[in-house]
């Protein structure tokens, strides 16, 4: 296999990968006389177009991706990204719209945003949505800002936000940026929020609870109503992290469980591609009490006409340079329209079926810390393999050799040596079986030949990488 070099290492003086037309206006050499001009950009690449094409083609071939095989990262919902939606996002009129264009000339775009916001409200049982947040974490931040603005208007923003110990790290981080102190709530033996612990801690200093449902164990928080009643009884609000909404569509709705505000990840539940880490979109839905606080501008419909409206004096303000990741919303809308009500329900049913099939098929070989029934994902651990000094890291790296992407590792924090596994609904039985077989082989190898696991991966483009040195002696850019 060719070892791909850095572009800087194949660069040479005078090579070009693009040509500009000849300047067609009278050139003025003096116009930049008083500019702070730079010298040439030192060591910047100079390569041909073909070199660029081969460079990126070869680089791409060292990536694993959902188009290639099962990608069971827990809580990441790595489902197939329909190609039609990519084609739709390339429609020139969407692609070439300038965000400052006259709204009269952008009626199609505005209708896309408004339609999507209305559909998401129906799917989740919320009253209103904003599609401005650019990712789930930004959605969380918006959600917590809405809560704070609402409580401030009532006279006291309060001090604390409760977050279960199983929560994603973005939750406490988002609450913190809103000026809240985080109190961790314990999980009980079923892996759900410990209602007693919550009751003990709940008081009028508490602004909100941030709860993920189903939680990161894949377990439905079956006391969600009790949790929200308790929090509401003391004047607090309920935030739901909707990262795991793929388990619930058409089955039940956060809006019917006492949730006041939530975000969705369009790049998870609604099939838009992850792109190797974005762009995503994190629309936020609210009950009507929080609607006046939503970010501006908002899209509204008046007399069959769409427009941006910013006259909301209570709004938390603007959160994005323009209107969010518009093209991501376009793709997600295409997905919802292609699914319909029965399709979305079938998505969730199949996602849960696939996950439970994996769980059942591997429950002998891999330890499950919590025996509670799970929905779209389940969290195994390396407890049985630890007896042979094999860790979840070794298991993950060996899976790479066997042709599958590893599950999410070491998360949630309440399961030691976690392997959080979410297959999604789009996998075929053959690919689920491939993963199951690979995991069974690994369980066997752990007993019989643990070395092969500890030295994995063996067949990848690079073998196990030294992460400790990377952090200790950071080399974060190329230098000649």
């Amino acid at each position, binding site marked *: 296999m060719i070892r791909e070099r850095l572009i800087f290492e194949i660069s040479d003086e005078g090579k070009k990968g693009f040509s*500009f037309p000849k300047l067609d206006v009278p050139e003025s050499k003096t116009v930049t006389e008083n500019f702070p001009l*730079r010298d040439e*950009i030192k060591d910047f690449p100079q390569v041909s177009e073909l070199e660029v*094409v081969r460079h990126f083609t070869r680089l791409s071939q060292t990536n694993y991706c*959902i188009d290639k095989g099962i990608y069971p990262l827990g809580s990441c919902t790595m489902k197939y990204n329909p190609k039609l939606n990519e084609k739709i996002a390339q429609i020139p009129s969407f*692609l070439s719209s300038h965000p400052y264009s006259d709204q009269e000339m952008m009626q199609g775009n505005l209708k896309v945003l408004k339609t999507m916001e209305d559909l998401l409200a129906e799917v989740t049982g919320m009253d209103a949505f904003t599609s401005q947040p650019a990712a789930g*974490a930004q959605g969380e931040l918006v959600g917590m800002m809405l809560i704070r603005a609402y409580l401030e208007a009532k006279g006291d923003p309060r001090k604390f936000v409760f977050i279960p110990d199983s929560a994603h790290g973005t939750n406490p981080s988002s609450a913190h940026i809103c000026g809240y102190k*985080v109190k961790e709530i314990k999980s009980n033996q079923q892996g759900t929020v410990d209602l007693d612990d919550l009751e003990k801690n709940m008081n009028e200093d508490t602004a909100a609870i941030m709860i993920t449902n189903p939680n990161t164990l894949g377990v439905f928080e079956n006391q969600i109503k009790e949790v929200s009643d308790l929090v509401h009884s003391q004047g607090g609000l309920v935030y739901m992290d909707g990262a795991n909404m793929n388990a619930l569509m058409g089955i039940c709705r956060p809006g019917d469980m006492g949730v006041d505000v939530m975000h969705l990840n369009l790049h998870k539940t609604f099939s838009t591609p992850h792109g190797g880490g974005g762009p995503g979109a994190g629309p936020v839905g609210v009950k009507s009490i929080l609607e006046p606080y939503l970010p501006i501008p908002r899209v509204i419909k008046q007399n069959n006409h769409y427009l941006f409206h910013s006259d909301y004096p209570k709004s938390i303000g603007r959160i994005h340079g323009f209107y969010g990741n*518009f093209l991501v919303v376009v793709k997600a809308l295409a997905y919802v329209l292609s699914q319909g009500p029965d399709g979305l329900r079938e998505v969730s049913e199949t996602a849960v079926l696939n996950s439970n099939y994996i769980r059942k098929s591997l429950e002998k070989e891999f330890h499950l810390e919590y025996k509670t029934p799970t929905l779209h994902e389940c969290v195994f651990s390396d407890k049985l393999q630890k007896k042979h000094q094999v860790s979840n890291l070794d298991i993950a790296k060996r899976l790479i050799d066997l042709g599958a992407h590893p599950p999410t590792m070491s998360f949630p924090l309440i399961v030691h040596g976690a392997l959080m596994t979410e297959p999604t609904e789009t996998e075929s039985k053959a690919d689920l079986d491939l993963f199951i077989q690979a995991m069974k082989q690994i369980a066997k190898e752990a007993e019989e030949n643990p070395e092969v696991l500890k030295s994995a991966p063996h067949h990848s483009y690079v073998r196990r990488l030294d992460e400790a040195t990377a952090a200790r002696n950071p080399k974060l850019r190329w230098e000649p």
Partner: protein
Amino acid sequence: MKYNSLSQNDKKEMLKTIGISSPDKLFDSIPDDIKLKKDLNIPSALSEPETWDTFNELASKNSPETPLSFLGGGAYLHYIPAAVDYLSSRGEFVSPYTPYQAEVSQGTLHLIFEFQTMICQLTGMDISNASLYDGASGAAEAVLMSHRIQRKPKILIPKTLHPHYRQVIQTYTKNLGLEIQEVSYDESGQMDTSELKKKLDKETSAVVCQSPNFFGVIEDLEVISKLAHESDALSISVVAEASSLGILKSPGEMGADIVTGEAQSFGIPLSFGGPYLGFMSCRKDFLRQFPGRISGQTKDVDGKRGFVLTLSTREQHIRRERATSNICTNQALCMLRATIFLELLGKKGMREWAWQNIQKASYANKVLTDIKGVESRFSGQIYNEFVIKTEKKWRQIQEELKKKNIVPGISLEKYYPELKGCGLVCVTETRKKKDIDTLAEAFEDLLKS
């Protein structure tokens, strides 16, 4: 159109393995009283051709033909080389997750490393991250970062900073006890440095400066950084038109401590405002307070070079509420486009690109302000945008020119009530001489009448 891959037989077999009779049983853990008893009230499923038709119809509700546009203001029309679309459409780039499993994500990690390097080269900084959401959130993150480093309550932002960026900074900082003070502009269209001097004090964490600024005017970042440093404040440079980095002295050379901005100009379509590409770089002393993902070089067990996400102890999944930012998913695919774009243009292309932007805008500025009744509003040096003023209301000009399918630029009155009759005209390399002349003729006709 459904995208599931199970046959009826598969389902039966799988239910049997699980030991249940019907898929409904899978949801027994959900209390009955919160289960949905009816279908979702959304339109019925569409086939692929129907979905395609639906979106073509939606798209047709936008303006029927692409107007001759001179809109800028933080979103710029530049030519995108064919190889950018071609390469960035590859499934191996589009459909992986964040590169947590480095051994099967070398492509993404390798190109992030190249992106980081080029951002450092362009901005004159030591370290760069793998992207942020957009220029506006980048500016907000830079402000938060400066506050973590400095622990002083005051931040000075100029009125010449993009109005949306100012709004987003307000939103992000509102709950953290920061005091955001605005600094006005002078007749050159630059930040008013005498006002800056007055407002700078020992309580100031940072001074923000956008150059070229929202009026298209090039700021004197060197002077502003010097003033900031004299008060022990940091200098934050915001770049909303990243093509300018090809020719203007890098922010690092002019004393900036943190550089952030919008890199939409690097091969990313206008897309009605997003997805775009926030970037950030800084001096290496601030590494521990730096937000976002970073790719770092290391070796595998055989000694081969490889890349990993590194220094993650700054990030939310490790540090939780004490993280340097809550960002998780960023704008990776846009970052890929920018990386391809920059490598295609290369050292010479970047300069030529910026040069053409300057020349075209300069020509446009001249022919427009030669018209009786049109004048330059500011005297400062401009990059590829400029502010002109006429007797008429800009809204009126927009309405009149719309009839000729011309969009003359952004009306400034909404953001700057004092700038009545002023418009921001943007001319990139994509506008031909005849386009500019057409715009000038349209103005001439309009102002004659």
